């Protein structure tokens, strides 16, 4: 399990370039993940690897292809100092756990990382770092297994208009 380290402002065009957006299959998307910006990623990423970014990870286009490409590569945890809003939400909806860690920058390429989302921390190379809790309403979605699964649990929608 290896850490793939990225910098600030990693945009979704970098995660999956626009020319691959007619693809929807996560495994196939994964073969083009970070194409042109990080060409060793697609051939070498393995099940259980972790992506670590800096600030504003996943900015730009709303394409859900981005978390899908990451998921297709076998990665289910992305750690960053901060996330762009749409990407953060897309991760939760597609079953990739976005972890906000103020110390993300101290995690290095190749480190071993274990995340304890419920306890609110992660361990990187033996050092403990705090992570931000996932908002309560998003936890419900994660607990259900994603937004699709959550939708199936809804019997009657509780609208704020009531």
């Amino acid at each position, binding site marked *: 399990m290896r850490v793939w380290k990225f910098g600030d402002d990693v945009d979704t065009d970098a995660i999956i370039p626009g020319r691959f957006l*007619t693809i*929807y299959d996560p495994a196939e998307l994964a073969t083009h993940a970070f194409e042109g910006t990080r060409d060793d990623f697609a051939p070498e990423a393995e099940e259980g690897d972790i992506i670590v970014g800096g600030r*504003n990870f996943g900015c730009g286009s*709303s394409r859900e292809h981005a978390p899908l490409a990451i998921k297709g590569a076998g990665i289910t945890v992305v750690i960053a100092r901060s996330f762009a809003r*749409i990407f953060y939400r*897309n991760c939760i909806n*597609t079953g990739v756990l976005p972890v906000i860690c103020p110390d993300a920058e101290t995690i290095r390429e190749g480190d071993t990382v274990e995340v304890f989302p419920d306890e609110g921390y992660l361990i990187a190379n033996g050092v403990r770092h705090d992570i931000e809790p996932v908002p309560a*309403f998003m936890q419900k979605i994660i607990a259900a297994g994603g*937004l699709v699964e959550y939708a*199936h649990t809804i019997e009657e929608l509780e609208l704020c208009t009531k």
Partner: protein
Amino acid sequence: MSATITEKIFSGRCAREVCAGDVMMAPVDAAMIHDITGPLAIDKFVEMGGKRVFDPAKVILLFDHQVPADSIPAAQNHVMMRRFAEEQGILNYDVHEGVCHQVAVEKGRVLPGDIVVGSDSHTCTYGAVGAFATGIGSTDMGFALRFGALYFRIPESIRAEVNGTFAPRVGAKDLVLSIIGDLGADGATYRAVEFTGPAMEVMDMPGRMTCCNMAIEMGGKAGIVPPDETTRAYLAAIGARTTRQKENITPDDDAVYAAWKDYEVTDLAPKVAVPHNVDNVVDVTAVAGTEVNQVFIGSCTNGRYEDFMEAAEVLGDQSFSPDIRVIIVPASRSEYLKTLRAGLIERFVEAGAIVEGPSCGPCMGGAFGLLAPGEVSLSTSNRNFRGRQGSTEAEVYLCSPATAAASAISGVITDPREVA
């Protein structure tokens, strides 16, 4: 209670007064899908057990990113979307109609006080008519199509109060680039940006759309201009109903803002966002003389008649540099027709430009106009990320239509104020 425009819009649709930070399941007044993100959203809708969309009249369905189909998979996506529209009774704006955000607004599908979602990050453009509009992913969209509602966390707002009067050949694009330069690419993350003040009050609807369009480039969840006489006149001119707006949604000056920023445009210079980040913003003079290979005037940011007028005024009776490619793409059929009827298309073609039918064009490096390694593009669109318009070794600079036109004449980045 004093409130931001976002709080007022959500309070207007909920049984109680809401504040920033509240999380709620709120109804949506419109949901927009296009040819790239739509197929996945439809799949998700079906996976969620969806049979009929919540309200076909509230679904905006378009084709704009890969039109006419530029590949067989794109053509297949189009077929799937058309079939869905027909089955569901959704009005289909097919491949000829234009870029989603322009079409959604000009067809009167978004009104002041509406809550709108779109599976495209620049959905924030609709804030120009005083709606709360935000981009969402395809799974969220599947949910919205199924239930007609979505979870929202009401964002805090940043107030951008804009004062002064623009100098000639300086305008909305230069303003919004300078705000992004100031706040940074993540300066408004999880927040709504309210554009207010005297300079916004006299700004036309296309300029307001340019500003709101780029709210996402500072991380914003929405960009909003309070609706006023200009909004009402615009909506009346396009024949839109304005009755849906019930509450007064003018923001209160003493509302709680995450930040209050004052901007002064009187001395504002034309701005350029330098590769590869939208917040790398400098005065045009700092990069003047940079050689370019391609100039693109178009996109949902700057593909309207007024943008082409701005470019044409700079162009006058001159020609574009024969050493570069000038690609002009109107944002919609209606903007195309206005531009055509005013004689501008003829002028552009005469000057050496390629004019394409309404679409996203080279904005996202999909359909045509891609860049080779080492090439430089100057673009009136909204993103200059590495690889956005083709090769990851190409460079994209962002600017206003006036700066694009001035540079297209000389073949190097040029200050539009220096063109006679």
